[in-house]
């Protein structure tokens, strides 16, 4: 017990050290170059002063105050941006300007809906495929062809046929999260131990009861693994989809800030996407742990 605690402690310290090192390197790399200070205002003609102002530079000011305007931000700039966004995450200034919390809510809503639909289709279908070798063989070619298609390749088709951009986004989430769940469910169901099925048969339990009380618990860990993989993919895809379709969501936020060429905001969004993705993964890891059993 003591050993693991000290290991945790040391690992935490090491993580903090690595973080400090990274921040230090970042700070050094983005430090305004010395000597790049603009010429003092006194030696400039009025036109040169106006020109500098039109380029967003204050003549005669310290070099540091203008550096990193839209170039790579320093850690401090990113930090203040984070505070600014997180201090009012839920403001709503109409359709084009919403707080980061609202944008995340839109994205999570889309992912949730697409993922739930995929689960509704993939898990029953996976059961069917897993229990019947005939269906498995018949559907396998389709699954193999459809599985490797990049979700975004579906987007134009979805927009054209569904004729609604937000439903198209949900459809893309659906189509990309269906395959891992389907395959894992089928795999898990097919791999249920013969003995357990034989016992069920000797006891003459109804097929429904067999499915829910024997197969489902046995296959649950594999199914949840599939769901975890699917969720990871869905979260990857939503950002790209929203950048393409626009409107709302964290992907739209990235696009909008890209439009503004504001790297600071883009980096902030990247961090948020990473953290939310990690939390989603943790959620499924917990669920996976809950259904795992020891043989």
């Amino acid at each position, binding site marked *: 017990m003591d050993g693991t605690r000290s290991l945790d402690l040391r690992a935490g310290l090491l993580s903090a050290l690595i973080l400090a090192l990274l921040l230090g390197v970042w700070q050094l790399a983005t430090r305004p170059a010395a000597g790049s200070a603009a010429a003092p205002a006194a030696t400039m003609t009025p*036109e040169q002063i*106006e*020109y500098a*102002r*039109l*380029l*967003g530079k204050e003549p005669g000011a310290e070099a540091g*105050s*203008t550096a990193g*305007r*839209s170039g790579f*931000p320093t850690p*401090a*700039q990113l930090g*203040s*941006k984070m*505070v*600014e966004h997180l*201090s*009012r995450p839920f*403001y709503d*200034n*109409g*359709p*084009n*300007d919403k707080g980061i919390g609202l944008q995340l809510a839109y994205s999570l809503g889309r992912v949730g809906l697409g993922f739930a639909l995929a689960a509704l289709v993939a898990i029953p279908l996976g059961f069917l495929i897993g229990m019947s070798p005939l269906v498995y063989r018949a559907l396998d070619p389709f699954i193999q062809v459809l599985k490797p298609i990049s979700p975004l390749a579906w987007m134009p088709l979805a*927009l*054209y046929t569904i*004729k*609604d*951009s937000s439903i198209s986004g949900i459809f893309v989430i659906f189509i990309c999260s269906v395959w891992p769940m389907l395959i894992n469910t089928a795999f898990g169901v097919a791999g249920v131990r013969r003995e357990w099925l034989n016992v069920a048969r000797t006891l003459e339990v109804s097929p429904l009861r067999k499915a829910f009380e024997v197969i489902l618990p046995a296959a649950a860990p594999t199914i949840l693994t599939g769901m975890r993989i699917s969720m990871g993919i869905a979260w990857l895809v939503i950002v790209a989809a929203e*950048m*393409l*379709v*626009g*409107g709302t969501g964290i992907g*739209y936020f990235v*696009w*909008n*800030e*890209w*439009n*503004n*060429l*504001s790297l*600071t905001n883009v980096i902030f969004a990247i961090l948020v996407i990473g953290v939310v993705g990690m939390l989603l993964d943790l959620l499924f890891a917990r669920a996976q742990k809950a259904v795992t059993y020891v043989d």
Partner: protein
Amino acid sequence: MSDARDIDPYDADRPLLMRCSCGRHGSAAEHAAEDASTELRRRSETADFEADSNAFVEATLVKALFPQDAVRRRFLRAVGKGTAMAAIASVLPIAPLQALAQAAAAPEKKDLKIGFIPITCATPLIMAHPLGFYSKQGLNVQVVKTAGWALIRDKMLNKEYDATHFLSPMPLAISMGVGSNATPMNVATIQNTNGQAITLHVKHKDKRDPKDWKGFKFAVPFEYSMHNFLLRYYVAEAGLDPDRDIQIRVVPPPEMVANLRAGNIDGYLGPDPFNQRAVFEEVGFLHLLTKDLWNGHPCCAFGTSTEFIQQNPNTFAALYRAVLTAAAMARKPENRELIAKVISPQAYLNQPETVVAQVLTGRFADGLGNVRNVPDRADFDPIPWQSMAVWMLTQMKRWGYVKGDVNYRQIAEKVFLLTDARKTMKQLDQKVPDGAYPKFTIMGKVFDPEQPEPYLGSFAIKRT
């Protein structure tokens, strides 16, 4: 917009606050934007402006009907003002548009979604929102920022948007079914004239002659755009074949600046503020303003589907009035600086205000070390001359976007509104003016819209 600079603790000129001093806004920039919009709103409510903008709208319509002054005078003298006004009122198949102050018929549809691309071309469309011009017409409009032109097209086709910001050749292309299903679209007004530029990478400062551009890679925002047609026209006049001697790629405007910085492209003919943004970022310079190719050329347009106009004529009239009022306001140089403040924040263009202001006021840094003063760098002349449509069609045919015979007049009149006027005037037994076909001069060459085929035939470099 409010970067870390805004809270630089050592900056004596800025309050050390995360919010603005009144506490109601997220940043000082938002506060300034609201002040500007209050001032503009006040200006828009003065009797002077109302009279002005009424006259502006009326003049727009009269001019559209009578491109030649002589014809207009003859007509007015022949039929008298009253009849003429009745005829003008029928320019669109709807209630009197010129009577801005007059109470209009109730709109059929009040909640509208209008798409826009965050560029300065959309200025009237965007500013009508914060200034309350839409709500004054009894409309509840959402202006929705959209990620790209193809998406604008798709969202118009699947009716997510009720009306939209178009590149002016797009409605022609969509109506003809080029690059999409054929769906009749209309251009109600031209959003802006001029306002584009050719931006080159700073490393090409010594290559100001297009003859030296062999092998260059250029970007334009969309195939069916004035940007593409003007760039092709310009390099072809210099003797380069735009399909063989240079490369032209479709690139979204914000990526133009990034690609220019990375050296993936040598330049672009793009919409503002991204030309000025390249100067601001010190990666590019303004080689020339498109104003110098064709002064007064159309660029973006405001339009919707024919079906929408037929089903909601009053709504459309109200929208039309709102956008024209905004255009009347944007035309005035004294309003431009305030407009830049209003449309720069995150909800609209999401750009540094100084960049937008330089585009709109025409006092700008050119990237070569000069401050230039070109007040009509961007202008807002809303008349959708049908001869402009004819020119776009000649260029679409020139570069092989449309094949075979093109009925220039028929398409131009179908898409660029102002057409039913002639029908109505015939019904009123009036002498029909000859449509909106003024001539234009493009790079020193006069374009006669009556003679599109000989014009097309006169080019050495073409794909027909």
